[in-house]
């Protein structure tokens, strides 16, 4: 009898132990599912394609660098370029990476020969701290530093000024939350850089088109060969730099696509 009681009680205790350990493991398993894009510890970008890599010139004019390249050797520039740009004085940038397919006007990044010289003043904008909220409710908000232009767009979509309230989440350490903040700040910095670089790229393409046409006219007017060659070298140099810039914009944009959604 005593042996039976002993065996039953030990079985009971063993069952309790199993239940306890199972519940602990399940708890840890649930924690792994939550957290910033937690996929087995990997911060993975979504595979959605955004318009980040496509500059607005592609959307507005339907033309890109390929057409510009095709214009080499042509004597006249595309007349449509200037007409399109007259109709649309302000450039619009689509940032699917930030919020759902909303267009917003990036004031101050509409370059021409005059304001291009003052571009450093445009870029010297104070940074603001905002509390960025993700569209996924389960994702904790994050405090990021943004420029004034970007802040406006963020506010329109529910973000608020100031630091986010501290996260009461004992599942992760303080170090984790600090690293997360840094991560998203770098994402924001990259996005802003992409936008600015895109605007410069757009302006450079406009100027390239104009310069090629001017060169063609100079050649037909029998200008000194040395002058034409010098100008041609400058144009070629710009073309090379523009080509590389476009590649880098694509790479940088793909790195941060949808990361702030």
């Amino acid at each position, binding site marked *: 009898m005593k042996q039976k009681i002993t065996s039953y009680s030990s079985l009971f205790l063993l069952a309790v*132990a199993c239940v306890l350990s199972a519940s602990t493991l399940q708890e840890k398993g649930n924690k792994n599912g939550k957290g910033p894009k937690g996929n087995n*510890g990997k911060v993975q970008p979504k595979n959605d394609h955004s318009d980040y890599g496509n500059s607005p010139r592609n959307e507005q004019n339907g033309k890109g660098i390929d057409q510009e390249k095709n214009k080499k050797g042509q004597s006249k520039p595309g007349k449509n370029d200037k007409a399109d740009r007259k109709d649309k004085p302000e450039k619009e940038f689509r940032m699917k990476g930030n919020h759902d397919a909303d267009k917003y006007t990036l004031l101050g990044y509409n370059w021409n020969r005059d304001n291009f010289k003052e571009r450093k003043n445009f870029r010297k904008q104070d940074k603001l701290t905002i509390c960025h909220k993700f569209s996924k409710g389960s994702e904790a908000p994050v405090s990021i530093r943004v420029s004034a232009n970007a802040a406006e767009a963020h506010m329109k979509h529910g973000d608020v000024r100031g630091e986010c309230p501290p996260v009461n989440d004992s599942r992760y350490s303080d170090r984790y939350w600090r690293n997360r903040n840094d*991560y998203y700040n770098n994402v924001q910095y990259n996005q802003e850089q992409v936008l600015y670089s895109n605007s410069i790229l757009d302006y450079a393409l406009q100027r390239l088109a104009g310069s090629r046409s001017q060169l063609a006219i100079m050649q037909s007017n029998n200008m000194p060969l040395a002058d034409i060659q010098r100008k041609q070298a400058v144009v070629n140099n710009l073309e090379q730099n523009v080509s590389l810039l476009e590649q880098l914009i694509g790479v940088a944009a793909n790195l941060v696509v949808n990361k702030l959604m």
Partner: protein
Amino acid sequence: MKLNKQVLLAIVGCCLCISACSEQKKTSQEEVEVRTMDSTSRSIKESADKLDEQTKKVEASLEQLDNEFKNP
């Protein structure tokens, strides 16, 4: 009685062991996430810096272009 105590101790020991192991697993999981975030963050920053550098080159080229082609 002795056997009962031994069994009980063994079970308690197992429970403690399991909870310690799961705690360690949590820490290592967070470590992995932090390391991943750090490396991705570094790549993003490097990419932005390269972009900044190349943008400056394009800007310099544009300024040269302005000097060469003074009439719009």
